[in-house]
């Protein structure tokens, strides 16, 4: 982990209240897809954790949705603005060599799957992608996944695009088979996936955070391997370690 200053290179809306933010700076602390950064927001005390969507040597792509005041302030960032981030947080996804992999993202859980998809492709794995949103106005990055050459399905709760329902409905409707899955999204989605998919997988969790780097115990969960901090021991956990109640 390092504390670094990044510069806004571009910010643009890509769906309803959803922004793609491209930052320039030293990305050397980011080593795996699924890691996140923790962003200082003017006027807010705590930093805001956002997953790394994509990165190369000197640029970083984040996607965030305006949820409360902090992300609202972030949405007003402009090209050239400097922001203070803690970079390289969390464990990230471990790429496995399972060939029939599913990537399942829900809402703002989609972004980290993009860099993961690229890494899987590098390893010769072509995962199938399922993206879940509330409505067609919320859909983003379908094209980007398709441009990687991946078969990409969309589910929307109101049925305005793709399968009507949840990602699990899309999996059923399209009769998708897998021997491994990688997922990020709201807790109910992750739980449903764990219960309905028989294969093993990795899931990225969300929890309210105090520090984002393991110091405060704010984000602890109980796993099969004892108590773990989502920010430091996660956010990615193996399916078999998660206890659903």
């Amino acid at each position, binding site marked *: 982990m390092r504390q670094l200053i990044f510069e806004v290179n571009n910010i643009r809306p890509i769906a309803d209240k959803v922004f793609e933010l491209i930052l320039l700076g030293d990305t050397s602390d980011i080593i795996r897809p699924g890691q996140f950064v923790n962003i200082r927001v003017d006027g807010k005390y705590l930093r805001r954790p956002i997953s790394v969507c994509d990165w190369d040597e000197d640029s970083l792509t984040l996607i965030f949705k305006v949820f409360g005041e902090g992300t609202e302030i972030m949405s007003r960032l402009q090209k050239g603005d400097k922001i203070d981030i*803690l970079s390289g947080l969390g464990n990230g996804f471990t790429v496995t060599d399972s060939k029939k992999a599913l990537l399942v993202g829900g809402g703002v859980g989609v972004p980290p799957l993009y860099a993961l998809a690229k890494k899987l492709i590098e390893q010769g794995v072509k995962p199938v992608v399922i993206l879940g949103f509330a409505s067609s106005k919320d859909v983003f990055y379908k094209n980007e996944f398709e441009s990687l050459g991946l078969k990409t399905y969309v589910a929307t709760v109101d049925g305005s695009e793709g399968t009507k329902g949840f990602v699990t409905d899309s999996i059923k409707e399209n009769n998708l088979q897998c021997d491994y899955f990688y997922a990020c999204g709201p807790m109910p989605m992750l739980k449903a996936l764990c219960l309905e998919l028989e294969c093993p997988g990795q899931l990225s969790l969300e929890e*309210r955070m*105090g520090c984002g780097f*393991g110091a405060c*115990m*704010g984000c602890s969960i109980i796993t099969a391997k004892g108590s773990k901090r989502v920010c430091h021991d996660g956010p990615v956990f193996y399916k078999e370690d998660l206890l659903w109640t």
Partner: protein
Amino acid sequence: MDVNMKVNLSGVVLDNPIIPASGTFGFGEEFKDLYDLNILGSISFKGTTREPRFGNPTPRIAECPSGLLNSVGLQNPGIDAVINEEIPKLCKYFHKPLIANISGFSIDDYAYACEKIDKVEQVGIIEVNVSCPNVKHGGMSFGTNPESAAEVTKAVKAVTTKPVYIKLSPNVTDIASIAKACEEAGADGFTLINTLLGMRIDIKTRKPVLANAMGGLSGPAVFPVALRMVYQVYKAVSVPIIGMGGISSAADVIEMMMAGASAVQIGSANLVDPFICKTIIEELPKKMRELGIKSLSELKPTF
């Protein structure tokens, strides 16, 4: 101008008054790669109890103006694991006396854990937390009246040889009377303040943000309250005080010491700026020169 940052806490001499606060620095693990921990005056480690604890359900953190609420609830691996695993690990990187922060749910709990920790060589000071607002039984309730606070003090003093500092709760009408009672019961010093009990509600869900409903407020928001309480306790007792609550800069450290603190702890600020303790230690000499302060240990209220 040569400046002297050394301070003395009941015979334990610190190179500087900067101590990361219990609960915001874990057992040092997450900070050891960020900077050399030995630049610190000391470290107050995560609140430790007799038995291991997971703490409260999540969410345990809520954002507030100039601060945060936490309801972690003393998550820790228990006194035995702390002594056998955490302290030895920490002492590979940190070679100075530690401050051992101990909590309990009964007088007996406190005495049990303190007696054990007293035997640990690396521990310089035992910090007895009678002020955690995040546990149902015990915790803060021991710290909210003079009699029970004094009782804990007496029980701990009876089984320990090291300096015992009582960590006081700000959620009281008269903190000075509680400090006085503890001093009479043998307290060697005080740490204050712990967090102020607070609450936030998520107006979308109409439920408290914290799963536990209430939590402890910390951060710059509480600084003026902390300063006032340190001053009140300073006026009431004659033992050293470790001041804390919202400190985020070298200027804050000096202000707190001018209110009567002999050393300070930095809590919440570590969470949003992991390098803050290092920064403050570097800034302090400059600030001292600017203000004509030769020795930090001379600072005290002049009013």
